């Protein structure tokens, strides 16, 4: 049958890819059967990870310091989730009237790598540019150093390699300071003005910062046609680096601004990312960096793994006992899906934790379930007297709708969990969705191929035989 040949090809291609992902040599080799798992990334509960503790430096006079810590938490959580580390944990810690944040990251083998993932720990602010220099090093040039002292400003390196003399208090005024504003959104967009090309960045400040920003832009605005004085530029500073410096060409009353500068798409994307992620409301100071061991001891993991495997073996035996040759197919489908899922986990660098394993168990359930639905249908068809091959085809046709409907609802639930959840809930949703998709594929493609192959061995139920002979 042509359909079977295509199925065979797809089934083989998929499992070969899964094994390539599992066995691709890139990490420390495990010996024996453990080799299968060496490419799977394991969560904190199973394998431990890097542990870094930060002191949250809340500025004095802030009304609600615990809100600031909450905001820091959210920013870091979003960064880790965006980097795919949904299984990293973040918690607030309080000690002697100070607030800390403890970050634990699975799969981070060294703390330097972990710190890179956490990203910038500095705060973002807007500042006035008073001067700049390309050639001289202002740290060594006495004229430039004294210039900085005179203006109560400081020389900072720019991303473009230039040095900028910047002052936080714009025009020296204490009310024109904009430090760590909440940035609601920042996205790259195409510059559509006539005669311009390239990209710009649109960003929006939270309402409470719009008024200060309006005053700042009023103070620094330079009409596009006028000569541009070098000391009227506005800079965006993050981690003591001038990320961008440019002129304000109009007063911005509502906090919605755009930065134009003939950026390339990559530059616009980078700048938008800086604006988005830089919104840490307080500076973080690293207190300690190190490692944390797995929460689940090796004995617990071993016992649980053994229990799980025994459970699986029971399932395999039961299926064969009940469905005979079709049970063998179901067992093969189950094993196939398990390796497929592990392969996807390895290829997608998805971190497996205990909740993730819960998702896999549901997958075992849905794989068996799909097969059972199909078999019961086939049995019905056989009882009505159809020959085996026709019964298989009819059984699949009629159970496809059932299987799709039953699984799509689960996938929908998973997608919603993924969209609204953070951290580990998100991780669980991912395993759940992958698992359900996998079991649907296995049920409708793999099992069909196998059943067609073994059709000759399927027994016709007694009722059908009796009816046939009495006719």
């Amino acid at each position, binding site marked *: 049958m042509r359909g079977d040949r295509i199925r065979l090809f797809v089934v083989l291609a998929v499992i070969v890819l899964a094994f390539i992902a599992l066995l691709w040599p890139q990490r420390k080799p495990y010996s024996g059967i453990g080799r299968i798992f060496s490419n799977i990334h394991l969560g904190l509960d199973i394998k431990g990870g890097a542990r870094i503790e930060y002191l949250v430096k809340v500025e004095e006079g802030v009304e609600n310091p615990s809100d600031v810590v*909450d905001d820091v938490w959210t920013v870091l*959580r979003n960064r880790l989730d965006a980097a795919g580390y949904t299984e990293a944990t*973040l*918690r*607030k*810690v*309080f*000690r002697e009237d100070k607030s*800390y944040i*403890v970050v634990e990251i699975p799969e981070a083998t060294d703390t330097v790598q972990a710190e890179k993932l956490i990203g910038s720990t500095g705060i973002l602010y807007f500042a006035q540019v008073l001067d700049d220099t390309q050639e001289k090093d202002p740290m060594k040039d006495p004229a430039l150093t004294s210039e900085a002292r005179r203006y109560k400003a400081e020389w900072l390196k720019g991303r473009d390699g230039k040095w900028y003399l910047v002052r936080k208090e714009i025009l020296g005024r204490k009310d024109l300071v904009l430090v760590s504003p909440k940035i609601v959104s920042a996205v790259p967009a195409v510059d559509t003005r006539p005669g311009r090309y390239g990209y710009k960045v649109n960003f929006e400040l939270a309402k409470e910062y719009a008024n200060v920003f309006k005053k700042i832009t009023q103070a620094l605005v330079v009409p596009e046609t006028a000569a541009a004085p070098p000391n009227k530029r506005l800079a965006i500073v993050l981690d003591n680096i001038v990320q961008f410096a440019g002129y304000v060409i109009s007063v911005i009353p509502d906090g919605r601004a755009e930065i134009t500068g003939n950026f390339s798409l990559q530059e616009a994307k980078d700048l938008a990312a800086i604006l988005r992620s830089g919104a840490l409301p307080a500076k973080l100071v690293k207190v*300690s*960096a*190190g*490692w*944390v*061991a797995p*929460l*689940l*001891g090796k*004995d*617990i993991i071993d*016992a*649980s793994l053994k*229990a799980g495997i*025994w*459970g699986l073996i*029971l*399932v395999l035996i*039961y299926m064969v006992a*009940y469905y005979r040759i079709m049970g063998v197919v179901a067992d093969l489908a189950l094993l196939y899906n398990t390796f497929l899922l592990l392969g996807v986990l390895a290829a997608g660098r998805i971190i497996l934790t*205990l*909740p993730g394993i*819960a*998702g896999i*168990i*549901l997958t*075992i*359930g*849905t794989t*068996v*379930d799909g097969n*059972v639905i199909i078999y*019961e249908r086939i049995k019905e068809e056989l009882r009505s007297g159809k020959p085996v091959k026709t019964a298989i085809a009819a059984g699949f046709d009629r159970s496809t709708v*059932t299987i799709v*409907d*039953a699984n*799509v*609802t689960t996938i*929908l*639930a998973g997608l*919603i*969990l993924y969209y*609204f*959840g*953070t*951290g*580990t*809930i998100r991780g*669980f949703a991912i395993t*759940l969705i992958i698992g359900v998709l996998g079991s649907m594929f296995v049920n409708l493609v793999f099992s069909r191929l196998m059943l067609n192959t073994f059709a000759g061995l399927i027994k016709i139920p007694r009722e059908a035989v009796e009816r046939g002979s009495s006719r």
Partner: protein
Amino acid sequence: MKKQIDFVGKRRIFITLSLVLIILSLVSIFSKGFNLGVEFTGGSEIIIRIEDPNFTEAQVRKIVTPLGEEFTMARITRVKSLGDPPNISKFSIVVSKIYEAKEKGRVTEAINDALRKANVKGEIASFSETGGTAAEEIKRGTWTAIIVATIVILLYITIRFNFVFGVGAIVALIHDVMITLGFFSLSGYEINVPAVAALLTLIGYSLNDTIVVCDRIRENMKRYRGRSIESIVNQSINEVIVRTINTSLTTFMVVFMLFLFAGKVIKPFAFGMVIGTIVGTYSSLYIAAPIVIRWVKPR
């Protein structure tokens, strides 16, 4: 024709049983509450430093367990910082209790005492109040997720089947989650992150089960036009019963083995799954289907 079991005729008994279970669950949830894990409640983190690099978590557990009820469920993990000397080990002990200043002194004393008595050279390195690792994650967006999920699933089932089946599925789902939560509350099993995963898995499981039954009812309603809805529902349940039992039984085997033999942290997960499998199967047969009947049938 095989003998049919009369599921539908006895629906009043089963609806009553479910109502009783739900009321019991609610009473327990509101009076006794849940035993929430430290990842949700937060608590205290005590880091102890021991002058022996080969000290183990189990040894630490043995020393601190007698110090108070909160220590029996403590999360104990080994930690290490850059710059620690090689001949020490450090352990983080997280308990779900927040201590007042006075108690803090008492606990510090007690731990130091216990270390001394056990002849272990060590001391408390830091004593902090900690938030839960999953507290924020559960707080944020959970309710929105639940409401949106309910609406989307209802919508999907309305499009694919009809509105009544959607209501049946959602009621069965709420029924399953409520009773499972009730069992968690009654048994005192800790609700930790894996337990929440079990509850989420249960959602998938319950929906799947209900839809398979509803799918058969939909098919039979087309095939046997004019027959009473009771008899159609009953026949449909009888037709899928083998599938329902086989599927539940196989899932049950895996989670029951886990429940019996897996480690302490996994127990709550396995417990939730064991209860969930039973309740989920029961509800798809006895709860979702009767709702369909009640609604469709002219009174």
